[in-house]
């Protein structure tokens, strides 16, 4: 069948799945007094529409920051203002944003930057569009992650095609939409810097560096224009974006600190400042190897791996991480579906599973089950995941015996996830341990993330600096 028709069918299928999920209940439906993320978005539309710009991020009589105060960068605020003008069905806006930003980026990535036959590319489109985590959060919980992730993906695609300036522009826009994109910023920085070094800092490299720097600064300035007049404004916005007073973690999240807290109560042992420095140090240590490797070898393949490693490291070790932030590593892992199908599918399923307590709170159990099953089925079958389990395919040259264990471990893991999901729904936790199931879910997911972080790091670092001739097609 023609490519365009197959792709259209995949896109339509993805859209249908999204819309069907949106018909379910959403975050905070009918739960006063705070309701949920849907109410937050609605409130921001109200604030941006009715108040002048310089009051958006401040606590005033008209704007109570404790009730869903704005805590995303200015582009989100402008977007809310735009939505406020048309009081249509809000879920339409998410669909439109997906259609205009995220989905075209996915299609372009699959067709221009991934390898394989045309059919394989179409399968990649379908599997990426079916990733349950993003669908459930954006259409179930209700958020606009597809805009920031979509813009970041545009950045990757455009950089992959060689247009560095435009790529950095796209990424800066993404950063100005949601500050969590900072998780991706280091790879972008190292990749571009590495490219500049490669082209020689004395000549074209320097010119490229200057062009990119100017683009970044100008874009930032344009986005923050209304706030530039007053330094106090800028400080307040930054204060809203990075609430360092809130502690190492909140609620249950599948990262190191929350899991460590089970054994040692670090939240109570260490002071907030110490916690901050501790997490900063560990995060930097975790991202250092991958960033240096990317700096030395700025190819697309390294770039994708670095994106995964950096964002996953941030997720696992950083300060005040929310479970939804797993979407940030999930995006680059989606890009690896074509190359390393089984680890990617494993990660993506684990990431969806890690958000189970959130989905249960929002009443999204059935969409969670259906989309997870669909994703697993389609991706394993269409991408022939189990056929790509050899040593060579998994690029684990040094660990010879590991690949044979992988299919079995994968099945065990999925079964355990299914079992834990069932238990979370069907059984009531014992009275002494009311948070038993969310905790089990987050610790189990954490172990997966840690293991996969090690794996992706090994894959990235083990690749030789000078590519051998037969691997030439892998380099940019």
């Amino acid at each position, binding site marked *: 069948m023609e490519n365009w028709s197959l792709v259209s069918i995949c896109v*339509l299928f993805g859209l249908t799945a999204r819309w*069907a999920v949106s*018909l*379910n209940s959403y975050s905070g439906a009918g739960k006063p007094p705070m309701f949920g993320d849907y109410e937050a978005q609605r409130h921001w539309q109200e604030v941006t529409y009715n108040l002048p710009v310089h009051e958006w991020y401040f606590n005033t009589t008209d704007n109570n920051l404790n009730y869903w105060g704005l805590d995303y960068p200015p582009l989100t605020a402008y977007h809310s203002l735009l939505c406020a003008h048309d009081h249509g069905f809000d879920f339409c806006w998410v*669909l439109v944003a997906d259609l205009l930003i995220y989905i075209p980026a996915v299609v372009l990535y699959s067709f221009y930057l991934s390898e394989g036959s045309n059919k394989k590319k179409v399968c990649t489109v379908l599997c990426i569009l079916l990733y349950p985590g993003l669908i459930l959060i954006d259409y179930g919980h209700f958020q606009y992650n597809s805009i920031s992730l979509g813009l970041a993906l545009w950045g990757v695609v455009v950089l992959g095609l060689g247009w560095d300036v435009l790529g950095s522009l796209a990424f800066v826009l993404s950063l100005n939409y949601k500050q969590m994109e900072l998780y991706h910023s280091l790879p972008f920085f190292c990749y571009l810097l590495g490219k500049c070094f490669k082209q020689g800092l004395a000549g074209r490299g320097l010119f490229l560096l200057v062009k990119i720097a100017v683009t970044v600064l100008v874009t930032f300035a344009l986005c923050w224009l209304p706030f530039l007049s007053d330094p106090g404004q800028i400080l307040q916005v930054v204060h809203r974006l990075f609430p360092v007073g809130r502690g190492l973690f909140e609620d249950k999240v599948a990262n190191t600190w929350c899991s460590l807290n089970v054994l040692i109560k670090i939240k109570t042992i260490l002071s907030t400042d110490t916690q901050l420095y501790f997490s900063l140090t560990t995060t930097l240590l975790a991202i250092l190897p991958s960033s240096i490797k990317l700096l030395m070898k700025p190819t697309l393949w390294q770039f994708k791996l670095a994106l995964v490693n950096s964002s996953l490291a941030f997720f696992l070790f950083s300060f005040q991480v929310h479970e939804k932030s797993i979407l940030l590593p999930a995006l680059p892992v989606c890009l690896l579906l074509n190359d390393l199908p089984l680890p990617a599918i494993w990660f993506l399923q684990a990431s969806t599973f890690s958000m189970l307590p959130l989905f249960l709170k929002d009443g999204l159990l059935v*969409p969670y089950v259906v989309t997870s099953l669909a994703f697993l089925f389609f991706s394993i*079958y269409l991408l022939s995941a189990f056929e790509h389990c050899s040593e060579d395919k998994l690029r684990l040259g040094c660990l010879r015996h590991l690949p044979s264990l992988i299919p079995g471990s994968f099945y065990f893991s999925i079964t355990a996830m299914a079992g834990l999901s069932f238990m979370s729904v069907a059984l009531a936790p014992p009275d002494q341990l009311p948070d038993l199931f969310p905790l089990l879910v987050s610790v189990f997911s954490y172990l997966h993330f840690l293991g996969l972080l090690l794996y992706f790091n090994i894959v990235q670092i083990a690749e030789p600096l000078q590519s051998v001739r037969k691997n030439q097609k892998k380099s940019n």
Partner: protein
Amino acid sequence: MCYLYVELQSVISIPPRLIHRGQASVYDTGCHSTDFEVHRNWLAITHSLPVSKWYHENTSEWTLDYPPLFAWFEYSLSHVAQHFDKEMLVVQNLIYTSPATILFQRLSVIVTDIVFIYAVKECCRSVREEKGSKDLLGHPFFILAALLLWNFGLLIVDHIHFQYNGFLFGILLLSVARHLQGRHLEGALLFTVLLNLKHIYLYIAPAYGIFLLRSYCFTKDNTDGSVRWSSFSPVRLVALGSIVISVGALSFGPFIAMGQLPQVLSRLFPFKRGLCHAYWAPNVWALYNMVDKALSVLGVRLKLLDVAKLPKASMTGGLVQEFQHSILPSVSPSITLICTLLSIMPAVLSIWCRPRGARGFLRCLVVCALGSFMFGWHVHEKAILMAILPFSILAVESREDAGIFLMLTTTGHYSLFPLLFTAAELPIKVLLMLLFTLYSFTSLKKLFRGSLLNPLETTYLLGLVAVEILCEVVYPLSPWQHTLPFVPLLVTSVYCSLGVSYSFIRLYVSLLRQHGTDKHKQL
């Protein structure tokens, strides 16, 4: 190898159905169709009341109007239902919609769909295909599986609207598959069961009857294809007869014993309802009504008619009412029956005179279903599925049929749009329709290598887009919304009936032309 392929594609096709079933099944924030309440009521009646009261009960307006075997089916379902929510089984609890009730109802449709999936698998096994390596997506049986399992009409009607059509059509398709495989007794058994589950399938009974009589009871034909009377096999006739009688006895037996047969029949055939359903199914009578209305308006404008003398009843007001035609003669149930019989007669005669095996029977079946849709009394637009689904099998085997199929399917599916009218359902129905239409066009085009529709047909189908924009976008914003509330339904119905009528004519022409070429061969 082929069998492996079949297994593979049926496995592939299951999750997409599960997605839609699953997603649609939690669509309980929107409105429920009345069919929900209908089936809940039937669960309650069969569970709470003794058998003698089933067809007399009328606390709710949705009385039991399917044959007894379906009532037994609901009875067995009710035993599972009591574990979900006992309250739904109380007859007095009208319009009872607890979440458990909804979940149970939706799940029951999903589970009974297994019959449909199995039937599709069997149909795919019977599909003829040309030799030559094709990739999986290009195989006729894969296309057939996708066209059936992803049929837009079935998805909408069963899972968003709510009915058990998947289950029933599964039995129909299984029966057809058995005939295609030469297992005629099983096919006959399945059809009899189907008839006792929903009597609307009486419309295609002539096709079955004549085919089985001609091709099964007469074991041999003469060299010129005509009947060899001497090869009549009484054994086979008795076998068929005993199947029909035993199933009928199982289903109607208890009611005949209680002397309730007239009551049951009166419930099954309620001719009090009007010529057309509230929303006109796109058949001949829709065009007839349109012409009548146009003439009456014209007559009033030209002062040939007195406005006061015209009957006031509105025909597409959204409720089921009886009405009279103003200018053209009124149509009674017997007239529709005669028209239907006349329309299917040539097709039925052709399989008597020149039987073309199971495929000829299938073609005749589709013609009967479509004929009854075109001329029947109080036809529901959902009945178009009775023609579309079996026709899918023929569509993947012949180029001409594929062309007619595309025309019929697109128009027929579009005519189902008014079933879903809320704003939340609009994206779903548009997306699903686009998915199915895009897939059917591109896959059939690839299979038969080339364009299947002529420019006129293509223009007509593109006109559907214009109609949709008119009804969903232009009309609500126009001043006519309050003065002429029936316009979208009217336009949809009349425009689609043109397409459906055209497909019917083309199908007949192709059937008679085949009949003609057979005769020609003999000469």
